[in-house]
């Protein structure tokens, strides 16, 4: 701490006393080298040079062990996205969840404005970004951050400050502060359509012995609404929100552990009679998130057999089976099978797809473009190991599977209805799609004495650090009378 204090003094960062509150004091964007791309100070208790502290302690630190660090009186919150650091500083007991949610929101706004967020897009739009962040944070307090509304008055086109714009501006301001800040009133479409995508991400941790340690589903219901006017929507699922664990298994409805809604959904109505009713934003948004842990249908089963042959070889037999209905199929199936760190070469045989050893990542990557329901595929392979004197510590990584299954939900959730009411009384077309996928969270642990034997090698090296004194052999117990 002393060192830090001195650092602060040296850099002139000793600030005037400030009260507690909960807002952000400054907002920065850094590139990977730690160069400042955006810096906006909302309060006078910090100097621009605070960026140096962040650069030293986070950007140039290879072992950052928390997304929040406190240095002296300043706390730094950062989120990494592509090659950027989005960083907020505060000098008080900030609402940490709010700061991070704001950073996430900024990232999504930037994506919506520029198509992507990376160093190039930030640099290319820095003036616009300043304009945006001045609008969405005032004095550290996040303000209206609905992209749809922002786009009506913060644009890449030049606006003349002319009296003609006044009427338009009043419309904007009433929308930006209104009760339905997420929707403009004057939306018009020739064809009224609404698309509902139910996207489920399955998380699985399966033990090496094949028992399911944890299986759950993160569901997202995404909606793209292209509807005229101010439509009132009602949405229904075959769900049942389980609040008390003892109520489980009481009906055939899909049990959800929790669900959360976009701010357009009237939570009071949901609370009283479980109806999901809302006026949707125009275009794409996430209507609902949910979580389910009971009766998860695992679409893909993996059975690995990994054996050590002597000390120079490891053999693999990995079977994968699609457990769902044969009318459906899984696409983009990718298995990542870890190999020991001292692997020299690995050869694999597969009937379906392609398998390749990636030495840089120490994995065999097995890609299967398409798997029909009920189908089973097998990989057999061998990894050759070198005999090494010095072994690196290595935690047996799990086998990781990625895949996508269309028109399948692991939770069993289905959309029952989507009704649209609008005073124009137009006909609207609704489309529903289902997708279940795994994305880095579908893991099958591997165990084999191979990995354990690596660890014991570690000890050999440690033996060097014996005590200075005489060595002691074990102790024996005197049997108690």
């Amino acid at each position, binding site marked *: 701490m002393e060192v830090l204090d001195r650092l602060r003094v040296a850099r002139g960062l000793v600030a005037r006393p400030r009260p507690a509150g909960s807002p952000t004091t400054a907002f920065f964007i850094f590139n990977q080298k730690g160069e400042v791309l955006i810096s906006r100070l909302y309060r006078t208790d910090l100097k621009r040079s605070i960026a140096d502290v962040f650069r030293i302690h986070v950007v140039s630190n290879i072992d950052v062990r928390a997304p929040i660090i406190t240095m002296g009186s300043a706390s730094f919150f950062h989120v990494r996205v592509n090659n950027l650091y989005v960083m907020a500083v505060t000098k008080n007991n900030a609402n940490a969840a709010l700061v991070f949610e704001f950073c996430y929101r900024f990232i999504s706004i930037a994506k919506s404005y520029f198509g992507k967020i990376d160093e190039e897009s930030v640099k*290319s739009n820095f003036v616009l970004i300043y304009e945006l962040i001045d609008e969405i944070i005032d004095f550290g307090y996040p303000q209206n951050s609905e992209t749809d509304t922002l786009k009506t008055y913060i644009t890449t086109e030049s606006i003349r400050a002319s009296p003609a714009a006044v009427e338009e501006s009043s419309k904007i301001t009433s929308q930006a502060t209104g009760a339905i800040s997420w929707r403009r009133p004057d939306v018009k479409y020739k064809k009224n359509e609404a698309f509902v995508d139910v996207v489920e991400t399955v998380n699985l941790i399966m033990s090496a012995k094949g028992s399911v340690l944890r299986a759950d589903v993160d569901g997202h219901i995404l909606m793209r609404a292209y509807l005229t006017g101010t439509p009132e929507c009602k949405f229904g699922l075959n769900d049942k929100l389980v609040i008390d664990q003892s109520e489980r298994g009481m009906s055939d409805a899909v049990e959800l552990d929790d669900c959360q809604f976009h701010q357009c959904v009237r939570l009071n109505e949901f609370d009283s009679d479980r109806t999901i009713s809302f006026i949707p934003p125009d275009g794409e948004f996430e209507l609902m998130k949910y979580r389910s842990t009971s009766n998860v249908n695992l679409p893909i089963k993996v059975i690995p057999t990994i054996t050590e042959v002597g000390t120079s070889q490891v053999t693999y037999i990995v079977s994968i089976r699609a457990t769902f209905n044969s009318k459906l199929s899984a696409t983009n199936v990718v298995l990542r099978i870890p190999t020991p760190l001292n692997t020299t070469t690995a050869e694999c045989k597969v009937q379906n797809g392609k398998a390749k050893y990636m030495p840089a990542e120490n994995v065999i990557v097995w890609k299967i473009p398409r798997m029909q329901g009920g189908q089973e595929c097998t990989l057999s392979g061998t990894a050759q190991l070198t005999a090494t004197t010095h072994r690196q510590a290595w935690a047996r990584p799990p086998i990781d599977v990625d895949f996508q299954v269309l028109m399948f939900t692991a939770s069993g959730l289905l959309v029952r209805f989507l009704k649209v009411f609008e005073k124009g009384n137009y006909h609207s077309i609704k489309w529903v799609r289902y997708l279940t996928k795994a994305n880095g969270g579908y893991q099958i642990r591997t165990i084999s004495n191979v990995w354990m034997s690596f660890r014991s090698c570690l000890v050999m090296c440690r033996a060097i650090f014996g005590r200075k004194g005489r060595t002691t052999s074990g102790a024996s117990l005197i049997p108690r009378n």
Partner: protein
Amino acid sequence: MSGQAGQDAKFFQRGKIQELRAELHAAEAKDKKFVKRKTVLKKIVANITMGNDMSPLFPDVVACLGTPLLEIKKMVYLFLVSYGRTKPDQIQMVIPSFLQDCADHNPLIRALAIRTMSYIPLPIVTESLTDPLRHALKDRDPYVRKTAAICVAKVYMADPRRTERAGFVEMLRDLMLDANATVVSNAVAALVEISERHDGVAFKVNYTVANKLLVALGESSEWGQIYIMDALMTFIPQESKDAEFIADRIVVNLQHSNSAVILTTIKVLLYLMNYMENRKLMDYICKKMGPPLVTMLSSGPEVQYVALRNILLIVQRRPAVLKNDVKVFFCKYNDPIYVKLAKLEIMYRLARDENFGEVLAELQEYASEVDIDFVRKAVRSIGRLAIKVESAADQCIETLLSLIETKVTYVVQEAIIVIKDIFRRYPGRYERVIPTLCENMDVLDEPESKAAIIWVIGQFANRIDNADELLDDLVYNFMEEPTEVQLALLTAVVKLFIYKSQSDTSKEIVHKVLKWATEDVDNPDLRDRGFMYWRLLAINPANAGEIVLADKPPITTDSDRMDRGSLDQLLLHTGTLGSIYHKNPETFIRHSKAKALPESPALNEKSRAVLIPLPPEALPSTVINVAGPPPNPPPRDQATAPPPAPPLPDRPRPVSNVPKVNATPATDSAGELEEAAASEGLLDNTDGGGEGASDDEGDEDLIGTASATGHAVSDPYANLDGAFGTYISPESSSGQGGRRPTEDDDLLF
């Protein structure tokens, strides 16, 4: 709009003031659509970003204000926000332009003008802002009013007294009743900020206003909901039905997709629950809080981290919230390390008879990962699990033994440290594993693990037939060992001597060590403890045996749990930095106000009984580290507050079976003083690595009962990442009416 990519990257290069000025002047001519001026201004903004001082361009940039282009105006305003404060003499020339904008027809321009002016905290600007701001607070356009509300907070920071005199605070209060929810939420945000200033006005919401705010809550943006709920924290329920009514109204916000809204809702609910009576409602609320907390674990890793640190606090105070959900805390292989560590801390706390098997299997899995810190904490958690769940102890010991077989040094060391605690928790059950531990003595190179094995050998010296040999080896480097190990050795050899007083080896060892400790060592703790043992043995070896080998108080994981008063206080900061560091904000943020549950007739008796009163208003200080966190005793000032020296009885001379020591007069006279210091040392000894009740071993051996230890933490950051070192030992708060929490406490009230 969205498709159109910007082209501004080329402006990101360092420019010279002279060149930029020349370019700006050149742009005045033949600049039809102001393209040239826009370009130069962009270059200037890029240079501000890169940290180049552009302030010399002040007059030139300000000259651009005449351009009727909003984009240019915004860039000039950005320039003014960056440098205005440093140019009090030149700012005057901008004010007429500001005032003109303040009266513009376009509400966006009006708002922009007051927003920009309020960012420049110069008296001259603030003064000219007074009138426009007063108008803006009553503007017909809600956008201008919501901007003006925040402006009041800004000018208050610059000059509180002037702002109060101008009546802005009262106007803000009126805005709380505004028809527009966004205006209301910004007004309360400003009021909360003003009230949290140490010299600010008080802001308390009464029941009527709280109800009005609840109406606005439903119509607010997600951020607005947070500000309104923060304001509800200032509401003091006078009757429990008031608290219940408000809780019932906000509980729906737990279904919001924004994690900050959820955590803030939980903060308010946890606060209100201290004032409730309706058991059923409280049960219901507890059940409603669990699922959204778990859902946050599917959010980004940063939010997961915030959620996990808060969950750790919440489950200690309200175990009902997450009692069935241990599986969700299992680590994914690719979780960031900070998420893994935070999950690990929660896992053993949720373990019970029914699920310890799963938890143990996970912990064993983690013990073979790469990250050393994570592995060590996983091993440590296995030990805590054994201590917490009695039926798990057998399997935990088996697991620990299998981990010792891996021979990975840090795993072995950590395992031995926790096994020592398991011995203490279940005396007489697992001593059979001692030989295995001793076989691994050679790999122990850290003080804590060495001290642990030494304690084991000393404690069970009667059951280890070669204990004297082992200790003889261990004392070989006595003088070079760290204090922690020396203290352990000293106690262990005394125990050995008491067990085996007939053995010549043990006599020799104890003599050797006592002599070193009393004559050669500089550390007063060690020396005094040495003297004490010596005298104990000299006066009456039989009594010494009873004292040194007295039954030790059992240890439990209850000491890992913060006491309820501190939790109640910390949970007032749910979701904030304080809740992540598990420290009250006033301990690490200067000038922040301490918070406590406010007194009211509705405050439930148990919460009141453990209430930690607010410290009296301290004088403004310039030092951050003024006081330790209230639940801890304040750092002891050794120099100014020595405890009264206990009167010493006649100094006994070493006699009989203890070989004589040539105590010189010099050491004798010094002894008297040190004796006094020693008794304090015994009470105050935290050995640097003390971790609650389970580690103050040596002390207990000496004085028979648990001494009041407290962590004299003077550096608030010292323990920020100490996953297992941050717990406050329960004794420390006993003076304030706290008591040890136990597992089966009814924590609903």
